[in-house]
């Protein structure tokens, strides 16, 4: 009798607790979202969804043409969640957010403030905290619905483009949880990469055109790619990045890549002013030189390159910090958080309102540059 009861219970559990027991939740009946764009409209929001066309094929290598692989659906509603529900009405499938790779916010929405539109993603347990977040230079719809060629899932490409910041250090990347942390921070200003869609023959090319700087939850300023580098360096994300330096002493432009970059920040009160000392240690590799006069990089020349690099980095960082602190009243460099961590007492006494204190903060920068390697070239083309 006991055995029969046990078997009955096991069978009952097997059939009643199955995750896919509700037929509309089976994978073939789900709308597998790959990218999501949200734009502001007069009536609320326009949600543009890039979803896998599961009826044709989920495998991009199976020979299907571009329109077959993904489909674009646009829904207008008063909120993101209503739009997601409307998707079910249009498609007859329940949206699956767990496979979403990118969330793109439209420029106008970001300027209005993202907080009220991000709530849906915090509440929905399907949504991954590691999904990439970006701002469209105009409409999110243009980015999400961009056709990037045959057998290409645009969302995957966009994700790769955003994640490439780790390889180039000229752009930034933010996942949802990092962006939310920045939005909640009392000191650090949130920022997101800006995506731009450009025409390239009969298809679109998407690129990161800059960085959107937020004032609380509102997009306030656009930083160019050049203005982004200081953020990347000061937040210790500059490994693998590259830049060039003009070295008049050898009448040459030298391209350098960052092998390792590490910044250390200290705070002191000098003359009743917050003094922020930032020291950056950077080791570099020489990628290319346009010099035609010198056959070898002698120690003296290397010293010149290091000196010019130091000057360039210091100037760019100083300019960028000054601009952000004094003009934009923003701190995307995390300096406020570091001060909060290192000098909590001083911070509490005088920097509780970090934004107001920014204009009084004196930043002293020092960059130590070491050229560690010169590449694989043993001989130059032109003799000394």
């Amino acid at each position, binding site marked *: 009798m006991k055995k029969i009861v046990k078997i009955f*219970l096991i069978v*009952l*559990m097997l059939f*009643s*607790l199955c*995750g896919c027991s*509700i037929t509309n*939740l089976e994978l073939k009946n789900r709308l597998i979202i790959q990218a999501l764009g949200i734009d502001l409209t007069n009536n609320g929001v326009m949600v543009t969804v890039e979803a896998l066309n599961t009826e044709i094929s989920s495998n991009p290598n199976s020979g299907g043409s571009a329109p077959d692989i993904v489909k674009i659906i646009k829904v207008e509603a008063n909120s993101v969640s209503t739009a997601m529900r409307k998707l079910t009405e249009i498609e007859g499938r329940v949206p699956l957010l767990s496979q979403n790779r990118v969330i793109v916010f439209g420029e106008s929405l970001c300027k209005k403030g993202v907080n009220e539109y991000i709530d849906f993603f*915090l509440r929905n*347990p*399907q949504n*991954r*905290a*590691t999904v990439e977040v970006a701002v469209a230079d105009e409409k999110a719809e243009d980015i999400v619905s961009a056709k990037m060629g045959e057998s290409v899932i645009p969302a995957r490409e966009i994700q790769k483009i955003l994640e490439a910041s780790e390889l180039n250090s000229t752009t930034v990347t933010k996942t*949802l*949880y*990092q962006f*939310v*942390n920045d939005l*909640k*921070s009392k000191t650090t200003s949130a920022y997101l990469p800006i995506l731009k869609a450009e025409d390239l023959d009969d298809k679109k090319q998407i690129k990161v055109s800059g960085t959107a700087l937020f004032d609380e939850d509102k997009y306030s300023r656009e930083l160019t790619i050049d203005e982004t580098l200081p953020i990347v360096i000061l937040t210790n994300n500059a490994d693998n990045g590259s830049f060039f330096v003009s070295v008049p002493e050898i009448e040459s432009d030298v391209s350098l890549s960052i092998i390792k970059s590490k910044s250390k920040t200290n705070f002191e009160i000098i003359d009743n002013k917050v003094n922020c000392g930032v020291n950056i240690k950077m080791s570099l590799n020489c990628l290319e030189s346009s010099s035609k006069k010198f056959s070898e990089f002698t120690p003296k020349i290397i010293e010149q390159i290091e000196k010019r690099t130091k000057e360039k980095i210091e100037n760019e960082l100083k300019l960028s910090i000054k601009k952000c602190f004094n003009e934009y009243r923003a701190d995307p460099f*995390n300096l406020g*958080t*570091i001060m*909060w*961590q290192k000098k*909590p007492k001083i911070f*509490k006494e005088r920097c509780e309102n970090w934004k107001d204190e920014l204009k009084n903060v004196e930043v002293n920068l020092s960059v130590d540059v070491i050229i560690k390697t010169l590449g694989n070239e043993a001989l130059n083309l032109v003799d000394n």
Partner: protein
Amino acid sequence: MTKNNPIISTWQIFSVLLLTRLLSILTFVPLFTKGLNTSDYLMAVLISTMIILIASLPLYYQYKKYKNKSIIDISEESSTIFSKVVGVSYALLFIFYALTAASRMNLFVETITSPTSSGNLFIVFSVILACYGAMLGLEAISRSGAISFVIFCFAFGVIMFTMISKIDMNNFSPVFYNAISPSFDAGFKIAANTVEIPIMAIILTKAKGNKVKGYFAWLIAFCLISFIIFFVTIGGIGEFGFTQLFPIHSVAVLSEFSLLERLDVLLTGVWILSAFIKMCLLLYLQGDILSNAFGKSHKKMFIIGAGAIIIITHLIFSKSIKKSTMLLSDQIKVGLFIAFALIIPISILAVNKICLRKRVNK
């Protein structure tokens, strides 16, 4: 008086108790810890350990003075009616904690794993199976608990290991930035989830081995593992974690290793297993206490009855989030913790001492 023949090893029982204690950390809900900065949670864990240690002093006195007697046995020495009242109150405490374990599991199922459907069926089955588990006895529960603890350690190790590279030190706040009191408050709330002290007051008589050593190993392991869990949560996702109903689960979602993504399933599995073991143990204990007080032959009936109470109460409270948060509220648990870790044991020990003195005087 009940016979307390040691049937399980101290290490087995403490590994089960560690598992049940860590369940409260894994299912930590940051609803009642507002105003806390990230690093304050780490301090709260250390403070909670100190509070648990202090709250265990009556327990230490109990086992030092009365060796192999549970708190019910000691109360029985004073008066049979008194011991029945004590037994019923302990049984109700264990039923309440089994209910909260089920309720928290339901909240997790309905919020995270299956938001579109009701978790009631799952909870009903779990409680029925926990009743069955409780009927198998303490030996079976401790053995399966010890095995579950090994599985827990494996899952915990994997998730923590994969998260190391994602730790960002910028996510940590200075400690006690907003004053020490919020950390103490949170530490007290974490400690208040320790039903294991009343459990120890009853169950340790059935364990063989060095109990003091086992207790300290339990406490240190609890402190260390909880500290690591919070450290990785804060370092991994920072403030974002505390915007989520189950922060520890949110961190597990982030963990990935090579091709293996979303290792949160490991945590979910361990979580359900731990909740099941906890329910089994609590149902067994209340059944054991009540059967000792009101008749040994009714043990199974007491377990089934408690299971029915849990199911009915759960179904009533799970109807709305307002009601279910009442069960999750730390205020009730703080009250119960003070009562069952300190006030009741101290009162029982004091009454016993007075009664013994009176008998000696007579």
